[in-house]
């Protein structure tokens, strides 16, 4: 038996939580992005001591370690690109405490956002961030990638709810950042540095999260537009009227068509866009506000506006948005889900540019996403076995990134950079910007053992979307 395995066995309580068989290694070689890289070991720690011990031995022996949740990353976050140890934290669900008095949740890294929200609800509270994978993805992964979700507009994203962390450093030491208070300016804000650092600066072993009172009621509305520019104007007018929806989603013509072809629900397929809006808050207040939203949409040339009269009807309106993914992959199997994000005012222009990209590269591109915060999801469907098409797709995706940055936006709104977007970092941040980030990484992780090969491009790395 080799030395690393021996050391792992000494430091992990139960051998059944260390895997070295090929079928297991293959099963931890991928995530929801592209590419497959074989690790040499998979370890499932259940305590801070175990995590610290694994990282310590990895740092001593220069073995790379990759923290992993449930592998739902769309950016390659947990991919073991240089072999080594996958640290699967998904089993560590032992801690989920609700401190109702201070409106906090204290959790271990394997707990899901859904579980946190469910536990909070028992106390009349909510955990607002709602990535669409919230009942699968671990909170550790949410924190590492700074996940967003439809509620970003009103409630912000994961980082806005974290006030304290326990972190194992790349050298295997344990530190605590922040604490249980909303206000905390003692030294650098390491909490915010760790959140969104994609597992490159430390492994989160515990988090203290803020909770919110549960809103008393919700209202839902769908508006259809003949021109996407009108839809964009309607969104701006709603927000300028002082109304902040909990969710504000948009679907373009192509996604509406796909959904109707897949499971017809009577949506007109000759509209250019539709928006879905959910308000939450005091029942009286939002009753009034939904009427005003309705009026604004009509004023901005909406073809039709529908306010849900019951919970069932609301669910039905959201159904269209839920069906986009299964609807589009019926045509071709490979789905590239992007999250380039632009300032809200640029949404109509971004839609126009995406149309041009679709035609220029002749790719199957549909657009939907969180219009309220400018976080669109251009999705391209293709067939990964068609090499020529995949090259066109790669070019189209590159152009989507360029366009987003040109319009004052960003490469990634909520998925993270990982392996996938590393080649474009300099485009957005400039050489000095990237260098300053690299210096942080080098200072924290001198041996480059913690999730190496992520965020920063490898020499000559180019953008590829293949699994080989």
């Amino acid at each position, binding site marked *: 038996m080799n030395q690393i395995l021996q050391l792992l066995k000494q430091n992990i309580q139960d051998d059944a939580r260390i895997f070295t068989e090929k*079928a297991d290694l*293959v099963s931890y070689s991928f995530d929801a992005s592209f590419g497959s890289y074989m690790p040499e070991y998979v370890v499932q720690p259940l305590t801070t001591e175990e995590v610290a011990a694994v990282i310590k031995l990895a740092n001593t022996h220069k073995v790379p370690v990759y923290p992993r949740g*449930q592998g739902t990353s769309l950016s390659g976050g947990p991919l073991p690109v240089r072999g080594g140890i996958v640290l699967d934290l998904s089993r560590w669900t032992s801690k989920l405490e609700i401190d109702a008095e201070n409106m906090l949740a204290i959790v271990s890294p394997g707990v899901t956002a859904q579980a946190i929200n469910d536990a909070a609800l028992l106390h009349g509270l909510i955990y607002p961030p709602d990535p669409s994978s919230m009942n699968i993805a671990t909170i550790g992964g949410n924190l590492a990638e700074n996940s967003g979700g439809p509620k970003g507009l009103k409630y912000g994203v994961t980082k806005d709810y974290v006030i304290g962390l326990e972190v194992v450093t790349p050298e295997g030491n344990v530190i605590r950042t922040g604490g249980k208070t909303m206000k905390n300016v003692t030294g650098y804000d390491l909490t915010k540095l760790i959140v969104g650092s994609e597992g490159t600066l430390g492994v989160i072993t515990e988090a203290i999260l803020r909770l919110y009172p549960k809103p008393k009621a919700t209202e839902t509305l769908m508006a259809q537009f003949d021109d996407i520019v009108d839809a964009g104007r309607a969104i701006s007018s709603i927000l300028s009227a002082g109304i902040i929806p909990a969710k504000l989603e948009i679907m373009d013509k192509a996604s509406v068509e796909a959904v109707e072809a897949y499971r017809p629900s009577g949506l007109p397929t000759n509209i250019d866009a539709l928006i879905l809006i959910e308000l939450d808050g005091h029942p009286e207040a939002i009753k009034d506000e939904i009427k005003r939203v309705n009026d604004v949409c009509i004023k901005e040339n909406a073809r039709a506006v529908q306010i849900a009269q019951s919970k069932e009807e609301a669910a039905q309106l959201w159904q269209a948005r839920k069906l986009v993914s299964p609807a589009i992959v*019926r045509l071709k*199997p*490979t789905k590239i889900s992007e999250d380039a994000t632009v300032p809200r005012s640029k949404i109509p222009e971004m839609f126009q540019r995406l149309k041009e990209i679709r035609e220029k590269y002749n790719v199957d591109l549909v657009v939907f996403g969180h219009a309220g915060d400018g976080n669109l999801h251009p999705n391209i469907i293709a067939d990964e076995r068609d090499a020529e098409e995949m090259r066109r797709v790669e070019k189209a995706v590159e152009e989507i990134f360029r366009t987003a940055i040109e319009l004052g936006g960003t490469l990634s709104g909520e998925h993270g950079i990982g392996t996938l977007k590393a080649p474009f970092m300099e485009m957005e941040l400039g050489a000095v910007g990237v260098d300053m980030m690299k210096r942080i990484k080098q200072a924290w992780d001198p041996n480059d053992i913690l999730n190496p090969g992520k965020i920063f491009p490898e020499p000559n790395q180019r953008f590829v979307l293949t699994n080989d």
Partner: protein
Amino acid sequence: MTELAYQETLSCVQCGYCLPTCPTYVTFQKETHSPRGRINLVKMAAEGKITYDEISDSIDLCLGCRACETVCPTNVQYGKILESAIEVLTVHKEQQMKNRMKTVKSLLFNQVVPNKNIQKVLGTGLAIYQQTGIQKVAQKTKILNILPENLHSFETILPPIEGPIKRNKRKTHYAVQSQKPVFKVVFFVGCIMDTMFSSINTLSMKLLQQAGCDVTVIKEQGCCGALHQHSGLTDKTRQLAKRNIEAFEQYDFDFVVNSIGGCGAMLGEYPHLLATEADWVKRAIKFSEKSVDISVILSKLPLPFKKSLPYVITYQPSCHMTNVQKRVNEPLHMINSIPGIELMPLPDAHMCCGSAGIYNIIRYNHSMKILDEKMKHVKLLQQRPNVIVTTNPGCHLQMKLGVEREGLAETVRVVHLVELLAEACGIEA
């Protein structure tokens, strides 16, 4: 030539939505035992990057409950991928299997399961064994401890089997009692069901009769092929399917009705099973369209309830009923129609109980871990139920075993939905 369903694996985008719905992932807690992991392993095997032997553990431990299909955002045909893998692995293992094992296996699947007479003998043997009190003696004296634990466990929970005399007295035609029948139905009795739970078949037919149907049992019918399919014996499954299609084609009826979640699922999948045989597809579709679960028919008709049942019940839906037959509302509607009962919804009811065909016999230890998870949920209920309702003989036995293992046998009964309906209608087998 058998092939892995490689094409189907490409529609998986590896999003992981299937993970929380998968009982083996939840129980064994590693990606290798998740639907996403299995799809990836099949894909890798098809690409020659991993051997059949290396993936067989993962495939063998899949329950085939198909819960993953119901949440998949990209409609991956997991059932097809799994079947192809089981079939390929079966062929691969056959080549490696010792001759002795081969004989046992072929005897079991080619002779025992589809053979009505052997079934009857088995049934008779069981009935005599139980009725003569030998069972009690054997249970008391622990004679049976020499049996492997799995068979021994099942021995303690066997239902009282109808003796051959009683079973042979069962009619093959239950004529409608009023004017014109609402539906003319043919009843599908199944094989394990008709041995272990023949009284439930009898009750089913009497219920249908009471509800205004004309019910016939045709003697030409045979095994549905589900267990063969689970074991990768696709050719044998096709033969059995064709036999059934031919048998039922000779009769004129509105529906072919069964009370067996698992068989019902198989009967509905004949078109998919025979998809490549042009001369059979149409016939298969015609047959499968008429094949329904008993709850589907009964929920359309009024039942003559005679008494109120003072039970607190919980319901463990059959995976094949839910995920393959897609019948969720009908059984629930029937449960809710029973006067007097109080239904406590079971948390995570969609999780498989671990019976899964003969999984609980051949992979007993894994199955028990899955069952323990299920029983945790039963114990979570605020009010302890005194009846657990099932709609499939496999689940029925497994839940009985669960109740036994938790020491609840004195207070909790496990029944088939049909038994409860019959009790409320004052019908006896």
